[in-house]
């Protein structure tokens, strides 16, 4: 089934496609804003998500029971239920039904991703039936002969001009006769399709939820085409994936609170239909013609997914689209590139692997940076980056890179150690053309990228010579172990030192934890097995320190995200959960300590901040923002884009270079408009923005330290001490 893809070429085309870029940009801006505004109450939101997750776990765990109940209820109401093992069976059932009822008018079909998955239209049309997509977006997509580019906005990438051309062909009228205005074009489609609705003898829809206890199917929409499709033709077929069943009506309420708000920011969509069995005549006097309702339950790989410990989680998806609206690679290239045969974006990996096979997922899996931003907005908290890491592991060389190549890129601890040990020779070498060519050839690291410089002495070496700063600060008596992640240790030791000094000046007694690579680099490469020994060593060390009363504070959000996120899968969720309360990102820790903001009071200063993806994913971003925003004298500007585009090793990859630059430019465009010091928490974000903007970029903690120091010294003539020395490379 799977096609050979040239992902690199597809990316280049997408990045160069102005219409697409424009649509993606506004999609991301618009829907993210609307979604965020729709959940003003975080506690309520989290409670809903927990409940939704619980319901999905319960349902999928006892799927057979709920499906049996659903079937019994639908049949009791006079509906028919058919279980299709795959698309062929589903299409055959629907075709037979249509021919048995002598359907001759075009079948009206409402939007359904499940129907897309089995290419139902193609199968029906091959049997001589006519199928008309009636959702406006799907109509456009069907006319264009494409697949949906977004789970809820299938044609968002089409320009008005393209739509006019397509409609002219459809309605067989000259393009000049198609109106210019978008509402007039919509009105034209309305009247053309209205006729078809009135003539239709059969309607096909998907299903958003099916309530087992009552046999009610629930359909969520804005246009009204689903209502038309279910109300007007006498025969209604609903196609649903097995996973759409939910136990009770009360459960439904939870999902209705979450689905529209997550998808489009609407409190509810215009229409939510709740249909229980075939429609009956409302007035007894004039009996309506015989009405039929058929529910086709589709397996098509879902039972296999359910039995798969990783993919099972994907069955919880309620297809709201929030994950794609917040996903940088998706917003960079769209669903046709960051997607497979049917499903797109992060969650699309697992669905493609589940229903179309691993190879299909392998075709675009590399595009996931495993940043975790999608999990934060997913109403059922699906751990998409983990799913994608597992798929990356399983796909192995299917993605076009051998294990040893992945390993070489992933062992940032080894390359760091080697590079720092031999610096500055190593730096000269990695900048020399021959080696860059070799790196590009062998490891696909783009030669246009400036590689970060190895530093000697490393943070560990410097710490040995470090004399603690004395302080009577408010955090006296707290013991902190700073985590020397590989990036800080080998590439940016001054940030580690600044962190140590900051904490010490605030009163903490600070130790440098023994350096243990968390395995983030290997995880990004999908090398889960290879991470396990590293993870075990890290855990032992961190547990020991926590046992000695240390708070474990790190400065690199991506490593903390591994420790707080992926480790649950690698070393067991209970053990990871026990360590979690001791693990802090540094700004999050300072905020947690409730320091008086006046501590950092000082001269007027504008800081421009953009949250690191994983800082957001681990929930530490809000803390960082409120810490900085409350400091007297600091004016904080927060810039929102999905990602700086670097995302660890992502931006260094040759195939992703243009995409990474494109995403980065969306950020720097916004930064350009703002004066002030740019502060970013992640080392790769800083590298990207420095390269693209030419401005100096610092870690916020460096500014905090400077402010603290200048305050301590500010008596007469107090500003003359240098900030933490940034040694020359």
């Amino acid at each position, binding site marked *: 089934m799977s096609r050979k893809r040239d992902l690199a070429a597809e990316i280049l085309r997408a990045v160069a496609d102005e219409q697409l870029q424009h*649509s993606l940009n*506004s999609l991301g801006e*618009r829907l993210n804003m609307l979604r965020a505004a729709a959940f003003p109450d975080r506690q309520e939101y989290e409670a809903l998500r927990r409940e939704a997750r619980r319901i999905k776990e319960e349902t999928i765990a006892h799927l057979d029971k709920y499906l049996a109940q659903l079937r019994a209820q639908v049949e009791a*109401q006079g509906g028919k239920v058919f279980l299709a093992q795959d698309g062929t069976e589903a299409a055959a059932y629907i075709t037979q039904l249509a021919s048995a009822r002598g359907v001759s008018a075009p079948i009206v079909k409402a939007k359904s991703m499940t129907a897309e998955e089995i290419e139902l239209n193609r199968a029906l049309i091959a049997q001589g039936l006519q199928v008309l997509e*009636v*959702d*406006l*977006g799907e109509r*456009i997509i069907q006319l264009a002969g494409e697949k949906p580019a977004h789970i809820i*906005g*299938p*044609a*968002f990438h*089409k*320009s*008005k001009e393209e*739509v006019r051309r397509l409609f002219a062909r459809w309605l067989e009228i000259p393009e000049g006769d198609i109106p210019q205005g*978008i*509402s007039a074009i*919509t*009105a034209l*489609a*309305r009247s053309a*399709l*209205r006729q078809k*609705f*009135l003539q239709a003898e059969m309607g096909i829809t998907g299903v958003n939820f099916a309530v087992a206890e*009552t046999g*009610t199917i629930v359909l969520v929409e*804005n*246009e*009204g*085409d689903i*209502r*038309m499709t279910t*109300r*007007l033709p006498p025969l209604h077929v609903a196609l649903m994936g097995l996973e759409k069943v939910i136990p009770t*009506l*009360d459960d439904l*309420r939870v999902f*209705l*609170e979450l689905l529209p708000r997550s998808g*489009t920011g*609407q*409190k*509810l*969509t*215009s*229409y*939510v*239909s*709740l*249909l*229980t069995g075939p*429609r*009956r005549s*409302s*007035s007894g006097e*004039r009996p*309506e013609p015989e009405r039929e309702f058929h529910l086709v339950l589709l397996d098509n790989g879902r039972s296999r997914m359910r039995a798969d410990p990783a993919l099972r989680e994907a069955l919880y998806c309620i297809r709201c689209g929030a994950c794609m609206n917040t996903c940088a690679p998706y917003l960079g290239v769209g669903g046709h590139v960051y997607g497979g045969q049917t499903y797109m974006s992060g969650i699309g990996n697992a669905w493609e692997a589940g229903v179309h096979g691993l190879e299909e997922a392998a075709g675009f899996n590399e595009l996931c940076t495993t940043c975790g931003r999608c999990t934060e907005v997913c109403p059922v908290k699906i751990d998409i980056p983990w799913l994608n890491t597992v798929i990356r592991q399983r796909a192995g060389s299917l993605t076009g890179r051998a294990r040893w190549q992945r390993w070489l890129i992933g062992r940032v601890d080894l390359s760091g150690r080697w590079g720092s040990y031999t610096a500055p020779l190593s730096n000269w070498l990695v900048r020399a053309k021959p080696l860059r060519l070799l790196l590009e050839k062998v490891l696909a690291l783009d030669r246009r990228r400036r590689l970060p410089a190895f530093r000697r002495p490393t943070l560990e070496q410097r710490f040995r010579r470090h004399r603690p700063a004395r302080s009577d600060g408010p955090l006296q008596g707290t013991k902190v172990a700073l985590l020397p992640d590989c990036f800080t240790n080998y590439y940016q030791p001054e940030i580690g030192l600044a962190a140590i000094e900051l904490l010490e000046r605030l009163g903490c007694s600070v130790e440098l934890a023994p350096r243990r690579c968390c395995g983030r680099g290997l995880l990004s490469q999908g090398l889960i097995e290879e991470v396990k020994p590293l993870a075990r060593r890290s855990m032992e060390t961190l547990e020991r320190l926590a046992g000695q009363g240390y708070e474990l504070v790190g400065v690199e959000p991506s490593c903390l995200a591994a420790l707080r996120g992926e480790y649950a899968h690698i070393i067991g969720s209970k053990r990871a959960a026990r360590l979690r309360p001791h693990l802090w990102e540094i700004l999050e820790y300072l905020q947690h300590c409730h320091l008086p903001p006046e501590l950092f009071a000082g001269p007027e200063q504008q800081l421009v901040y953009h949250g690191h993806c994983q800082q957001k994913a681990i929930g530490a971003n809000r803390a960082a923002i409120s810490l900085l925003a409350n400091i007297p004298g600091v004016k904080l500007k927060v810039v929102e884009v999905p990602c700086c585009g670097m995302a660890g090793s992502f931006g260094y990859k040759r195939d992703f270079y243009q995409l990474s630059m494109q995403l980065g430019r969306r950020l720097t465009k916004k930064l350009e408009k703002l004066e002030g010091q740019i502060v970013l928490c992640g080392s790769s974000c800083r590298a990207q923005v420095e390269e693209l903007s030419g401005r100096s970029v610092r870690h916020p903690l460096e500014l905090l330290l400077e402010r603290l120091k200048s305050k301590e010294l500010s008596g007469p003539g107090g500003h003359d001490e240098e900030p933490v020395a940034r040694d020359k490379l």
Partner: protein
Amino acid sequence: MLRAGRQTLFAWTDVITHANQGYRTLSISTEHTQLISRFVQELSLAGGQTRQVHDLAQLVSAIADILRERQTGRLLVAADNLITELDLVTRLRAKGIEVITSDEPAQVAQLEVGLTGALAAVASSGTLLLAGGASLASLLPPLHLALIRAEQIEPDLTGVWPLLGQAIRTGERELCLITGPSKTADIEQTLVQGVHGPGELIVIILSEDEPGGQP
């Protein structure tokens, strides 16, 4: 200001009128005023409109005015308890309005305005809960008028849920939660109202409270 016919309009008015305690009266009515204004606000965010009327005469003329604005004298009316209770069809006909009550799509396809009642409404989202009998009148015409009593407005989805469950369990096969008019953003992500369903939704709220809260 008491108007003729009010007592027959509002069963709950009796409760208020006969309540011994002024405080109780006040609290019920303040609560409803708040729910009404939340509903009005949320529905307008969802693209719908509202009209408030305070007695039967106002209701009939509000409907007549709306029809006159659309230059139509015909109205599709769905079967509904409140509409029956108010004998609205007779009153509208008395106003010279041609009322159609057919449930046959082909017969009503050309009508410009449909009138329905509702089982309940939700303030927090500006939503109506409609039963199947209302499906054509709320779907085919470009303008959907819905009539509710103020006391049918529940604070949130949780509030209407028991009613919704009861309706399904007692055999209501087709329910619809309606929040604003039909809409789409499928072309260039531009919001357009009225793609398949009605482009306009006006909810007429029969409320005991006078405008501005004056007694």
